[in-house]
């Protein structure tokens, strides 16, 4: 054995990373335009971001934001759905549309030599969508079918029940797609009203990243998007989470299950939380990455799962904090116990120097690897616009992560992690897991996959 193998080699001097320069301007109609140059591939990513998402759905029409976004590529300007797909295909592009809780998106990734005609199509989709009647019936039926199919998917069932128990029937309590009941109720008029109220230039941003010249993009954006007319800013939504005074367990019975889908958590914090950086480090250490405590415990120490994770859903308002783990039926109770123990331990301030350093170094070092492609860069600009992050956010990111100390970890864990008031949802084979879970000493309720109590 030669000596050089005995220990890890030391690194060379670090080489500097710089996030691409971003050019910003605002058109007279209020549309903000952001452009980042990236010439590594002959591609460009163009996105319209509309700062209204499923959080604007009226409770009885849950799913309307998503359905509206789904209809954007069913006809726009002078093109019907087929013609749109054909023309984008001829430009070497692909069009995607969709909505999440915070926003709606239309995006086209395309060969950069075709940026100009692509911008014109994206403009049509953004404010000249035709929302045709025949497409509406078909697409709504497709969404209802998606909802039907989710009845078989344990992770979808777990997500839905967890959200509904935490947030009730209002914002964040449904899923973005809505329910069979609410989507059946949505009419084409509802969709057209949603489009008119929210798809406004002063509620939107145009993001372009890739192999382009910023001045060219500014000119073509001005031409293509100038006709989009302003409207009144839509009112801000509200959430009404259900507070718990103690932890409780909900078993969602799925008799065919060979694994239990576990969700443990509670209401978290909004993206604007002042403790965002210490929380990000604390969560990464707790369960946010492969080498985190929860994954090493459940997967590498016990072999209970293929993977366990924790996450704060940093949305415009306080999204959930949740630990998620699919585990085999026989170790369901043990897994819940281990997760709760990790949540308690992180609150005690028991953090080693090495694991804190490893976690911070990971978060600081990994950033360049996550923004290689034009599409990645566009995604980062989108976050910036959506959450109002400062212009130097990515330049100061390392510094902000680097400043997090052990004391910060203990403080934010104590403040934002609450294992004694946790919602525990387990989608699994009730007959096999009911009794073991009983030994946790927590109240247990049983529901069917739609959330109705089982007597």
């Amino acid at each position, binding site marked *: *054995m030669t000596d*050089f*193998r005995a*220990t*890890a*080699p030391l*690194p*060379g001097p*670090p*080489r500097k*990373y710089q996030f691409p320069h971003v050019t910003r301007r605002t058109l007279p109609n209020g549309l903000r335009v952001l452009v980042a140059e990236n010439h*590594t*591939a*002959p*591609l460009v990513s163009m996105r319209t971001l509309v700062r209204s998402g499923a959080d604007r759905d009226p409770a009885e029409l849950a799913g309307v934001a998503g359905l509206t976004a789904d209809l954007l590529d069913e006809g726009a300007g002078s093109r019907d*759905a*087929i013609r749109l*797909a054909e023309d984008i*295909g*001829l430009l*070497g*592009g*692909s*069009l995607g549309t969709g909505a999440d809780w915070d926003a709606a998106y239309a995006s086209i*990734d395309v*060969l950069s030599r075709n940026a100009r005609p692509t911008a014109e199509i994206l403009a049509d989709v953004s404010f000249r969508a035709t929302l045709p009647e025949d497409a509406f019936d078909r697409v709504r039926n*497709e969404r209802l*079918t*998606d909802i*039907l*199919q989710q*009845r*078989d*998917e*344990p992770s979808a069932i777990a997500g839905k029940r967890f959200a509904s128990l935490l947030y009730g029937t209002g914002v964040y309590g449904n899923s973005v797609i809505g329910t069979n009941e609410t989507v059946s109720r949505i009419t084409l008029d509802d969709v057209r009203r949603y489009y008119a109220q929210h798809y406004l230039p002063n509620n939107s941003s145009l993001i372009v990243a890739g192999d382009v010249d910023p001045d060219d993009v500014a000119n073509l954006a001005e031409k293509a998007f100038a006709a989009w007319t302003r409207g009144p800013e839509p009112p801000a939504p509200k959430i009404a989470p259900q507070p718990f005074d103690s932890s409780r367990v909900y078993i969602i019975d799925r008799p*065919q299950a*060979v*694994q239990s889908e576990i969700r443990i958590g509670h209401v978290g914090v909004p993206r604007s939380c002042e403790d965002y950086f210490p929380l990000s480090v604390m969560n990464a250490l707790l369960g946010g990455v*492969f*080498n985190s405590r929860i994954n*090493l415990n459940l997967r*590498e120490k*016990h*072999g*209970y*799962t*293929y993977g366990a994770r924790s996450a704060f859903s940093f949305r415009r308002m306080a999204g959930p904090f949740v630990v998620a783990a*699919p585990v*085999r039926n026989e170790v369901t109770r043990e897994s819940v116990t281990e997760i709760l123990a990790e949540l308690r331990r992180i609150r005690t301030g028991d953090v080693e120097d090495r694991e804190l*350093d*490893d976690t911070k170094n*990971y978060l*600081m*070092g*990994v*950033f360049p690897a996550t923004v*290689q*492609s*034009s*599409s990645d860069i566009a995604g980062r600009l989108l976050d910036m616009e959506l959450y109002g992050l400062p212009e130097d956010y990515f330049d100061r990111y390392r510094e902000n992560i680097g400043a997090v100390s052990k004391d910060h970890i203990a403080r934010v864990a104590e403040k934002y992690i609450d294992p004694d008031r946790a919602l525990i949802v387990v989608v699994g084979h009730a007959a096999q897991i009911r009794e073991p879970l009983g030994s946790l000493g927590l109240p247990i309720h049983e529901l069917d996959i739609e959330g109705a109590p089982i007597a």
Partner: protein
Amino acid sequence: MLSIEHYRLGNGLRVVLNEDHSAPLVAVNVWYHVGSKNERRGRTGFAHLFEHMLFSGSEHVGNNEHFRYVQSIGGVLNGTTFFDRTNYYEMLPSNYLALALWLESDRMGFFLPALTQEKLDIQREVVKEERRQRYDNVPYGTAFERLLNLGYDADYSYHWPTIGSMEDLGAASLDDIREFFGTWYRPDNAVLTVVGDFSPSEAKELIEKYFADIAPGGTFPKFSLERRPLDGERREQFADRVQLPRIYRLYHLPRMGDRDWIHADLLSTVLASDKASRLDRALVHEQQIAQDVAAYVLPTESTGMLLLHATAKEGVDTEKLEKAIDDEIARLVAGGITEDELTRAKNRAEVDFAHQIENHDTRADTIGMLATYFGDPTMIHRWLDPYQAASAADLTDVAARYLVASNRATSVFVPTEAA
């Protein structure tokens, strides 16, 4: 044009360097030319279980330390297993190139001393959970396994998927691990690709230092795969806990890279990709008898396959859906495809490939694949040429020859109560 330099070490390890200073990153990627096709009966799933074991430490790297070393400096890493190959990769800040080479060389040359029964037992459980999570506990999760079972004879090792069976995973022993490692994990059965921000002369020195003294193996065991063509359609109906029926089809093709395979790749785009593609338009948009439809070829070395699946809408009978699919294929064969359809399919191939080589990590993987399957990493410059040269007639010709009943396996998933 990418700068590609490739050479071989004295022990047979093939090395490919692609210098690119566009970001302070370096991607290190090792392809071993071994996969589930090299498994023996009674040990299905073994190549993939083995991949998990290679993350559990080696002589100079502790258990879980491989992940820690890479993640704690901001690197990302993983490994994957497929029929014909297993890959291991990390992407790190470029000043850590030596670390990645140290880690990869330690597990290539010094893996066995760190092996323990306890590590095997834990990873066996983890892989069983992976199987439950991705195959057994989700709707249609076993469809690919069923298609392979049906579409390839039991003596052809595409007959089973890389995840393997629970029973075989349970049977894997430490002796199996030692034997598999000795047979396949050796420098003369691997390609090391390095992409990114490095100096080639330094990289070559480091590679020499860490890899050159790892001994090559003896002769490779005799291994040949002889695929018999199907002698007629093979069909099954399978009752599963699903809400809607779904039709799965596997059509045999020549191996990846063959002209017919490339034409079939383009054809799959014409058939099912965007809303204007043939099957999407007919089944989803116009007739509204399908919830979704997909068609694609898999990047497989020993033989090729085109997979096609379509989900029936509620109340739609699968015979009607199958007939509609076959009618569209027949229409395409009889009427041909348009120049616009061909252009769109070529554009998509060009953009997909541009995306694939846009990032350092996926580019390294593409290079490793080309070197392993075709013996020539510089094919990255020419990969799209046969795509650009394809004619509309080439695509209809492939449809006429391969998309026929006698060349396919069909598995129809139906809801339990309907069986």
